[in-house]
């Protein structure tokens, strides 16, 4: 049992921290980047590709690096620390993860190779109006005629759906179950808009749109979608932990420098104790997130499902606590778009909406409490 990084992992962390730090440690740079379309920096995306970060999760045969969950979690944390707007989670971890999980050898090589090289941005078109983080699709349906497949229906919100070169789309299959399809971004009707966290999302409409089955045509891949969602959840937790660390540090720095009544705010115990409670929330969430990352690394899908629920619940509680208190302890400045801390709260809020909020995960866990006596975190 070991909660520390090895030398190579430390080096990866330093490299990613250096890269995104140069881009975004000045918060104004992030603000300007997210104001202009596509809502992230194509330059930073290319640099991440050059560093090998975009290909980390994928096998070398597929044009990737073949790294494990711990390496990906390090990247997620570092992106979280500067709330980098690049769509790593949705494009690489989720959409790329699904191509890796169910794509044919040829599809994996082609799609993941281009993704890893920074030549192609993927988006996952899975959420549908009214859906709540289910691994199944219902509103978009797939139809087969003479060996050709078409999709019909609406996906929304599709994060960075308008910028995406290639969409990975889930759809209800004619014989039941959910299949995955590849659709050229330009082949779908897309309405782009900004999201409150500085990102972009789109309404994507399919009207008998030609689509290529991802992997074996007509196969139900609900289970694969669920597994990749779990991986995404654990990486979203890592990203949130990075963001919370900085939100807390920003808050404590502010308490030390801001003066009211002629004294710094950290003169007041009422404020310091609230910061201490934020630290407690952050540490507990960090512990569960690191554990969930290690459970994921064991490759046990069922244990990973449970760990994803657990980390997500704890991170949900912590994100709200740390985020809300970060703004409150700052006072009015925390409400402004110009100052960083409010945007951290926006990002934390968005991360929780991507793959399930605290109640969603608590509900899943509450249903299973009769199946065991107590939890043993060590295998």
């Amino acid at each position: 049992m070991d909660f520390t990084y090895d030398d190579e992992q430390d080096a990866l962390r330093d490299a990613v921290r250096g890269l995104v730090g140069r881009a975004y440690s000045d918060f104004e740079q992030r603000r300007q980047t997210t104001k202009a379309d596509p809502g992230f920096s194509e330059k930073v995306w290319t640099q991440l590709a050059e560093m090998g970060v975009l290909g980390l999760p994928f096998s070398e045969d597929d044009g990737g690096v073949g790294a494990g969950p711990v390496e990906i979690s390090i990247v997620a944390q570092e992106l979280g620390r500067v709330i980098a707007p690049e769509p790593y989670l949705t494009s690489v971890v989720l959409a790329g993860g699904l191509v890796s999980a169910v794509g044919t050898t040829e599809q994996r090589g082609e799609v993941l190779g281009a993704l890893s090289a920074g030549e192609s941005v993927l988006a996952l078109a899975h959420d549908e109006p009214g859906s709540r983080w289910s691994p199944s699709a219902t509103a978009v349906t797939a139809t087969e005629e003479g060996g050709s497949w078409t999709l019909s229906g609406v996906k929304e919100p599709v994060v960075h759906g308008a910028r995406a070169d290639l969409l990975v789309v889930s759809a209800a299959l004619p014989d039941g179950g959910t299949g995955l399809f590849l659709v050229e971004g330009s082949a779908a009707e897309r309405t782009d808009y900004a999201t409150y966290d500085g990102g972009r999302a789109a309404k994507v409409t399919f009207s008998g749109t030609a689509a290529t089955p991802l992997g074996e045509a007509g196969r139900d891949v609900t289970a694969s979608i669920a597994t990749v969602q779990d991986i995404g959840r654990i990486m979203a937790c890592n990203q949130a932990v990075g963001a919370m660390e900085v939100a807390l540090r920003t808050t404590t720095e502010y308490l030390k420098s801001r003066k009211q009544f002629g004294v710094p705010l950290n003169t007041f115990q009422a404020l310091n104790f609230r910061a201490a409670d934020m630290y407690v929330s952050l540490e507990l969430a960090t512990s569960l997130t690191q554990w969930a990352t290690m459970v994921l690394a064991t490759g046990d899908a069922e244990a990973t499902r449970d760990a994803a629920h657990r980390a997500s619940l704890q991170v949900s509680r912590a994100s709200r606590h740390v985020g809300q208190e970060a703004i409150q302890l700052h006072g009015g400045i925390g409400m402004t778009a110009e100052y960083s801390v409010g945007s951290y709260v926006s990002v934390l809020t968005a991360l929780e909406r991507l793959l399930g909020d605290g109640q969603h995960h608590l509900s899943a866990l509450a249903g299973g409490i009769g199946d065991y006596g107590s939890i043993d975190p060590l295998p």
Partner: protein
Amino acid sequence: MELQLTAEEQEFRAEMRDFFTTKVSQEIRDAVAAGHELTREQIVEAHQTLNAAGLAVPHWPEEWGGRGWSQIQRHIWNEEMQAAAVPPPLAFNASMIGPVIAQFGSQEIKERFLAKTANLDIWWSQGFSEPDAGSDLAGLRTTAVRDGDDWVVNGQKTWTTLGQYGDWIFTLVRTDPEVKKQKGISMLLIDMTSPGVEVRPIELIDGGHEVNEVWFSDVRVPGENLVGEPGQGWTMAKFLLGNERVGVAPVGSTKRRLARAKELAGEQAHDPLTAARIAELENELLALELTALRVVAHSAGSEPHPASSVLKLKGTELQQAVSELLVDLAGPGSLASGAGDDSALPDWARHATPSYLNLRKASIYGGSNEIQRQIISRTILGL
């Protein structure tokens, strides 16, 4: 990053589990599991069973019965002991005065006390808190004045847990009123049968007699009973409160109680609100256990992991929350705290509220949770 215990650690865990579940009196373990108070004899028996197997003071220097274990081994020992409902070695002996004597005492005082302390042949009581010195411990006023070779002690200690069983009491006393308050404190060992020592019970809200006042009126204490040097008492108190990294949070026992609560909940566990409450508690407890593991895994070096301060704070909150859950599960039956064994209500339901009320102490003792927040905000956050 590695989740697995090593093969040796797994073997060690199996060995501990086997010992605790087969070699310690079942009757005593059942009493702990049911949340009953133990008698003096039961506490001594369990402690001596552990000591005979070298499991009472594994963290002491090896010369005095320690085992030279890694932090992870100590963590496993502690967790398995709690999971098996084995009463831990008496803290006053094993975790408090024993390590202080081993660290600061003269060879003579070590030889005189350590073996008997390890085996609970001497039952130690703790004489730190006073009516006007709680969280502000350095404000203590019990005095020890030199008279020839002896010290003459006057004053009052309070909150002395299980003082009614004590043979000896280790006290913080003011030996020099002229210097800065922390500098004038010394650690003095006092035989509780000495003339002038009086133990008076304090009845608590759970109806039990767990703590006491201890009064000292012109108590003569031989000079050789002073540990280390005069004025070193504050350093020893800080050492004693600060050197523990393992077992700061009562994770194993709280897990055991929560698992038991699930069994006792019966049909109530199917109520979605109750199920959600249990699931949330389990999750927080898991987060706490993993935080404890991070602290343990990190403490190969000399400095404790900064997150260790979280353990006491959150650990006691969860301990209390689980006891509160049991009261709620017991419902109206929880009123029957005074009923005897002929009661138609189950034993656990009758004991639920006294345990809940008793455990309100947990966020007060050992550095109150407000003191923990102070430590976090000052030491870790730099506020």
